């Protein structure tokens, strides 16, 4: 299923905003991955 906006009746070319999409996910993904990694490291060190 396409993930881009589609208005019924409107046949406009799909605008690819891949750069913004990647940047957006990196901005939230990196801090989140860092937080999970830090926590898992703590957990692994303590239970291992």
């Amino acid at each position, binding site marked *: *299923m396409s993930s881009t906006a589609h208005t*019924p009746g409107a046949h406009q070319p799909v605008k*690819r*905003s891949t750069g913004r999409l990647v940047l957006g996910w990196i901005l939230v993904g990196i801090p*989140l991955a860092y937080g999970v990694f830090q926590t898992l490291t703590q957990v692994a060190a*303590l239970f291992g």
Partner: protein
Amino acid sequence: MICTMIAGDMGNGPKMGPFASGLLDTVVFNQARNITMGFLDRERTIAPPGFNRWLVPPAALAVHLCIGQAYATSVYKTALVKHFGASLTEIGVIFSIAIVMLGLSAAIMGTWVDRNGPRKAMFTSAMFWVGGFLIGSLGIFSHQLWLVYLGYGVVGGIGLGIGYISPVSTLIKWFPDRPGLATGMAIMGFGGGALIASPVSQALLKAYDPNSGAQGWVASGDAVGKLFLTLAVVYLAYMLFGAFTIKVPADGWRPAGFDPAKVKAAKLVTTENVSAKNSIKTRQFWLVWVALFCNVTAGIGILEQAAPMIQDFFRQSDGKSLVTAGVAAGFVGLLSIGNMAGRFAWSATSDVTGRKRIYMMYLGVGAVLYTVLALAGSTATALYVVLAFLIISFYGGGFSTAPAYLRDLFGTYQVGAIHGRLLTAWSAAGVAGPLIVNTILDAQGKPGQLNGASYQPALLTMVALLVIGFVANLLVKPVDARFHEPRPDRGRTEPAMEA
């Protein structure tokens, strides 16, 4: 028109009286304000054709990751106790005020959020949340605890409530085919925010305090104040990124290939709409409220006591525990991951199973897991950890599945506002959960002397609560047609409270 008249006057003659000058100032000010505020208006956030809807979840996550810091307050709790010379309870009140304000502001501001759109709501949330940190830091630097209550607790708490509900209805509209996945991604951020804030705050406190290398070091108040200022700057940037990235779909938009008729095939999913005002007159709202309240109360029961509880469960006859304080801390971290993972995984799964069925799992299977934990949890550490992890994942799942459940029952019209009202269940559970567990444990003995058996009455009370929630969820039926908003082709009279 006034502008045109003034411009005309200015063009016709060089002189301008003091009245006209003042009027011009006012008009220019209003125009500037309109340009600024206009950018935040819902009308200015309508997505152009071709807008990629997958940009909306990171915008929502940006806000939720910031406000999720509320769960990381324990990092500087001891430092504030020392700085203010206050008790743990007095410092704990800061967090309690924030959570109560979260529920109240979400309930009161929900309709405003739905009416004004996500950008203005996120922007407002950022102002309150960041303002809370700034006022809080002022309180720390000036040794005024009441300013921290006012700042982080009241002002920040309002930011929490508005921020929590701000992206929900937008996400549901962008992902009518997968609302559980969409809200799960955003609300996962609230769980994940603490995972980021905890290590970052610890590192910053060490950097800001020259005595951080000392034995038994506790961060200074000055370091906590600087931490608050730093968090304010970082959170402002992130939340504004979210506010200026988010867009609402145009009227009538739907994902390519999405057929609403297929969604309607599910019995509990409506294509009608119920207003926030009418939703609270329905039995369904209060049944879901009870189900969420019971699920959250039971989860908080474990979360509140996580570290001492695992040590008590494995306390030997000589009074020493097999689980050290360090291992217990790691266990708390594991629960945080379970909380975050459950918010995403179970909510996404609910798109396949349906919302009512997944709530039956949270509450029904949750009751069974709690029973096993109470009766056999102390037999093996691995069993205890697995049970607690699953229970906490159900706790998180309950939060993130709730908006999609409301969408199914009440439609998308004012789902954000209805969600805001539902969050009062969270506030109530935040008071009830710790109260139930602490009252029962106080009657069992003193901290450090408790064992697995001491927790049985509290855990079995939670089982009873989960059974009540299970029954409430079982009773959820489609909303009566008299509560539906009128369509152009039919009228409706104001419905009365459902019996």
